[in-house]
């Protein structure tokens, strides 16, 4: 998917700086701030709503909120375009 409108909520007070979300993101949405020891959600329009970052975070510091209307199946009929 390209140009999605999924949202990612981050709760920095819960984050322990383990980097797992940064590692788990396979589409480079998440970068790492080495000074703050926190993730940076830098390229959110590339998010695929896979939930990998949220699933690896045992501290529940991340919440992915999908916007399915921003994903497109690209079939020719209008309702699927």
């Amino acid at each position, binding site marked *: 998917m*390209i*140009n999605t409108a999924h949202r990612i909520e981050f709760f920095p007070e819960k984050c322990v700086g383990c980097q797992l979300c940064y590692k788990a993101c396979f589409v480079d949405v998440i970068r790492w701030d080495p000074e703050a020891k926190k993730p940076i959600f830098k390229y959110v329009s590339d998010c*695929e709503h896979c939930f990998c970052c*949220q699933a690896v975070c*045992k501290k529940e510091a991340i919440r992915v909120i999908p916007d*399915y209307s921003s994903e497109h199946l*690209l079939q*020719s009929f209008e309702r699927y375009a």
Partner: protein
Amino acid sequence: MNYENKNLSCDILVAGGGIGGLSFAVSIKERMPETDVLIIEKQTAGYSGKANKGGGVLQYFDPEKVQPIDFLKLHVKEIGAYLGDQEMMLKYVSMNKEMIDKLSEWGVGIPKDENGRYRVLPTGPMTAMIRANLDMTVQVRRRAEKLGVRFLDKTAMSDLLTDGGKIAGATAFSILDGTFYVIKAKAVVLATGSQNYRIGSMWSSGRGDGIAAAYRAGAEMRNAEFGNFAQLAKVKSHHEVVFGENNMYNAEGEFITKNFRKTRETDISSTAIREWYIQMINGKGPVHLEFGEGHPGPGARALHDGSKDQSYDSRFRELNEKSAAEVDTDLEVCPLFIGEQSPICVGHDMQTSVAGLYAIGDCSYCGSAAPGAVPAPPGRNRGSGILNAVFAALVCAESIAASGLGGGAEIDMAQAESCREQLFAPLNRKEGVTAKEVIALVQKAVAPVEQSVFMKQDRMEQAMQYVRKARELAGKMKAEDLHDLLACREAEAMVLSAEMHYFASAIRKESRGWFLREDYPDMDNANWLKWIILKNVNGEMTYTTRDVPIEKWPVKP
């Protein structure tokens, strides 16, 4: 842009840190412990690839119930449509237990019963599945690290370097700081995945950049026309419905599965996708799924016990299912184009036509010819994706261990510098188009299933117009930063994959296995028991055909 240059060297360079690349690295270190193995991965090895985002199932053949030859006969007739390399498929089935045991030995969680046997779920007369924990790639990475494999994460391979037709190494760049690497290697193993065109969410890591690099380096491609997998997905959540094709109904309440399927088949077929299109074009859509009273509903959940533990598996599944359930108020479905083009041509040793360049897993599944006329795993063969990657990894390690590392090729620094210039060109353009504009055009070509799955010459021509436009714009891409630059490389690879798909599809004037053409509806064994081989010759896409040596194999039409 003035990024740092760094020269590295190793014995074997592995591009791609998914289950294929990791399995190869572990296997070669087990056989040749002194070998210096470096894995480069554009994201993070152990977390990238598709194995940790799929069903977490491994195909299982019970040796007491299934002889490899019996499954081969089923596969060749029902799935591969006589186009497969029967020796390789036979070897894949024969190595089933060895592969699963290896994964278990490497630390992958595979549940066993109280007698120490794998928990098996039969799925058909000859097939069964067992579960594997989704953190398998992390476990195999840990194993590789213990064996001394080196890793360079967030580093994308950009080109392959050759010397007189032999592999000499590769170039790569850091997506974090732009460091440009020239890596000398005696052998390079591509484990970069298939081409999925950034359409399906969980398939999005397959962007074809390794395929494109191999093509540019002169490696042959085979079966590029079988890169058109599609699956039924729920229209609202876009989540796939595995086996949903058995329960399709049109708007008039007619059970339409019977139009293309007389008995239960191993998995989704392209005829199910064609049926959806026929219903829609005849005004009988939308298409939905119906399940009888007491049926648990869509999907294959029987292997998962549903316990609410805090493992990655449970959390991953629960989050995805809960999110989909919030929007899925009905079971309307339409096709999700997935692609899975995997055309790098390899021999029985997993070596490409470029000496010292190997390709394993999803980047060479169709190119190996093992499966025949079907896209990359699952390829109508559920549970074969992870195991195919492990199979190719083990075969590749075995062949390198047996033949030894070649070496002797030297890096041509002028070649490397040329690669650097071309790589960074989008960062130097002030005007131009974005990678996403190019990708959107490719998606307009390949995603509509009547242009890619149920094909006809005029509809393919329509698709090619988009691809030609994408090719024109690809030379004008600009990048704002290194993330963008990676997207530009991927966009170029998507244009190439689409070009190869339509080039080969136009040549194959028949229908065979997954490959469907409305204008050539019949399988033509007299003329098309052949593989189409594509090759880059001085910048031109050329083709030859190669006869399938069916006479030397056990299963014949």
